[in-house]
């Protein structure tokens, strides 16, 4: 176990914990955009900046910094607060239409940006380039259907050549994890349309009720989870009913 201090409050956390996790364990709130507990630390949005005051000094991104024995951390030092505010002010200037960013900024006392507004072609921009979609697709799902394109201020997220992706399985994890709701996905009939990725995948219909419910390309899961092999094709509702029936039959057999 590691003992450290967050805002003068002692905290004990297990090995391998980040400062951010220790801060949250201490009950202190810190905003984040690029952090997700299921993915590797990334350190891109720079909202979770904290000051380490001892044994060495520095402003660090708490999500990516390992908790160390004896560390003294201040989450709201003047420099941490001002770094956070400037980051939000720039995000506000990048994505003025984003509800999430506006709220987050307001919580930190930032209501307007001195840094201008996006050019007309990016006026509706919602993406903050936190990279969660890219990382969940690669690290957690393993489809690696999307990636960063270009660099610097040209950087954006997209599929290769920005056309229909052959690797996308339509799982929607990207949209689920996106902190600013920047990814548009729509189920229409037997299709799932991932508008942001110029990609459409076929939906699978339930052999019992006929409802379209899961992307066809996720069918590979049945090989990975043999215990549900007979059930994977069913929609969640029919699966529930079938499982319940099987259970009742088993109980009945045992009873008699």
């Amino acid at each position, binding site marked *: 176990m590691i003992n450290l201090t967050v805002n003068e409050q002692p905290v004990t956390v297990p090995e391998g914990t980040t400062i951010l996790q220790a801060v949250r364990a201490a009950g202190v709130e810190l905003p984040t955009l690029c952090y997700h507990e299921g993915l590797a630390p990334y350190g891109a949005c720079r909202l979770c900046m904290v000051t380490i005051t001892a044994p060495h000094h520095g402003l660090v991104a708490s999500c990516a910094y390992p908790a160390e024995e004896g560390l003294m951390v201040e989450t709201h030092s003047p420099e941490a607060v001002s770094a956070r505010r400037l980051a939000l002010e720039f995000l506000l200037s990048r994505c003025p239409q984003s509800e999430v960013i506006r709220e987050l900024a307001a919580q930190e006392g930032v209501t307007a940006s001195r840094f201008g507004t996006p050019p007309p072609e990016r006026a509706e921009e919602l993406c903050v380039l936190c990279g969660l979609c890219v990382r969940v697709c690669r690290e957690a799902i393993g489809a690696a259907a999307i990636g*960063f394109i270009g660099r610097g201020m040209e950087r954006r997220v997209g599929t290769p050549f920005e056309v229909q992706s052959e690797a996308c399985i339509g799982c929607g994890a990207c949209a689920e994890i996106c902190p600013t709701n920047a990814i548009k996905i729509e189920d229409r009939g037997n299709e799932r349309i991932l508008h942001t990725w110029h990609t459409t995948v076929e939906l699978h219909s339930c052999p019992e009720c006929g409802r379209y419910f899961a992307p066809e390309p996720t069918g590979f899961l049945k090989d990975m989870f043999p215990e549900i092999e007979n059930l994977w094709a069913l929609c969640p509702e029919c699966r529930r009913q079938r499982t319940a029936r099987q259970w009742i039959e088993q109980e009945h057999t045992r009873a008699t």
Partner: protein
Amino acid sequence: MKVRSRSDLETLRAEGLSTLYPSRLKISVGMATCGLATGAAAVYDALRDEAARRDLDLMLVATGCLGYCQQEPLVEVRRPGRDPVLYARVTADRARELIAALAEGELPTEGALAIIPEEKPPAGSKPAGGLPRLNDLPFYSRQHKIVLRHCGLIDPASVAEYVAQGGYEALAHALLDLTPEQVIDEVLRAGLRGRGGAGFPTGRKWQICQAVPIQPKYVICNGDEGDPGAYMDRTVLESDPHSVIEGLIIAGYAIGAHQGYIYVRDEYPLAVERVTQAVARAEELGLLGENILGSGFDFNITIVRGAGAFVCGEETALISSIEGGLGEPRPKPPFPAVSGLWGKPTVINNVKTLATVPVIITRGADWYASIGTEQNAGTVVFSLVGKVANTGLVEVPLGLTLRDLIEGIGGGGLNGKAVKAVQTGGPSGGCLPARLFDLPISYETLTQAGSIMGSGGMVVMDEDTCMVDVARYFIGFTMAESCGKCAPCREGTQYMHQILTRITAGEGSVEDLELLEEVALWVKKASLCGLGQTAPNPVLSTLRYFRDEYEAHVKEKRCPAGVCRALIRLSILSELCNGCGLCRRECPAGAISGEKKQPHTINPELCTRCRICYDVCPVGAVEIVR
């Protein structure tokens, strides 16, 4: 032939000595990129063809760079038993004349710069024949060459010549006589610090990595020299590739790695070629591969060519580039020495650091530590360029002052103009004003003054350089080179560039200066990697030392250096203009008109204020109105 032992090295040494000091006429042409850029290839061809035509027995060699780039193309003529003579600024015509004279048994004096004595001359003695010795020239007299020890003196394609100069002796000593711990201890005691710019003690880095009980380990040579205005690493890779290879193998032995990588910047095609050849040659000889020199130690090197991304000079970005991804940095800790390439312990050292290692192993830590100052041991290589009389690559002991370098070695400003500032450390560094030129050069002094040592770029600026424009230039560079991962670097450099563009366009305000400083400090403190953390240095240092120039731009809408196009006007002084028409022909905008031998005029509507006319006018009739 395979080199399997020390005695095999001796055989190779003899071969090298026979080509280094042949018993017939030998001419060496400096053919690193600098030489080639000024026509060395044509000089080489002219020498070869003319010698063939005159049936002159001649050994013609392409060597690397002697560092005195101002005087390129450089040609060294060595007659058996005589001290070699170095010729400067040789053209193809002059090369033919040289051969003609040599065929007659004469040695022309015209264009001769110095002699290069092969024996160490007695102290205080004067060379015969009226020519100075190379090391007595002001450009060389204060230099101390360790990293550049062989550059321009050996054929980079010849491993034998490298061995003849003592090469691979350190490798034999390390592998056959020393334990990895002893190697690390030697480097640690020598006080060698990373020459990539950050100055972390090299021995300490090796120690940390060696102590991690995980295999495999890797060692990487960082040759992604991206700083504009700097070419030290290119020169070493082009002119003495085996010194880097030898250093890398020793580093591998010290930390327990069996695989090394040399990552070379894409814009250096000749360096890529020469280092690739050198690795292949070392493999042929068994200096790379299994059981090197019979020591039982195996080591291989893979060369990776960068692809044009400055950020890859940052070690974690370089690692991710080798792994096959983007050149995107990741947060530290963990440091690469603990978790680097594919998550394995990895040491990354700069080209110059590695090229220094063999000398430390051969000559000992005490010898190295005696050079330079206590906390800043050894020498440092600078590329002295910009508005300075003598441009070139110089290697000096740490602790020399900026003035020694710029005025002593560099000979002061170009065309006698006053030097205003020097920019060290490239886009990560700062601009230091002339009044600080008495600062001794060390990692700490330069950092305290608001710049950094960096990898060794030293760009001299004079009164015709606008410091606001320079700041805008550097931020434009980092903006274009930012990977875009973290918000401060991506958004902040872009915004600083907007402000600086506004100021240089004469549309800035006093509030802009405050905003600029606020954003610069944020980018410096909050960015993820070294690129972003240092990107504001050119802005912050110019704001600190040249605030008057910023204020002239925002308050008086005036560019004191006469650079910022929106704030200047060009006109031709009719009383001086002789109507030669050169400016009219050269003006890219077609803005100049006039009859032959009559005073010309500039149409301000068409003029783009590029100042080409100002540069080409032979009588100084073009005036910049500020």
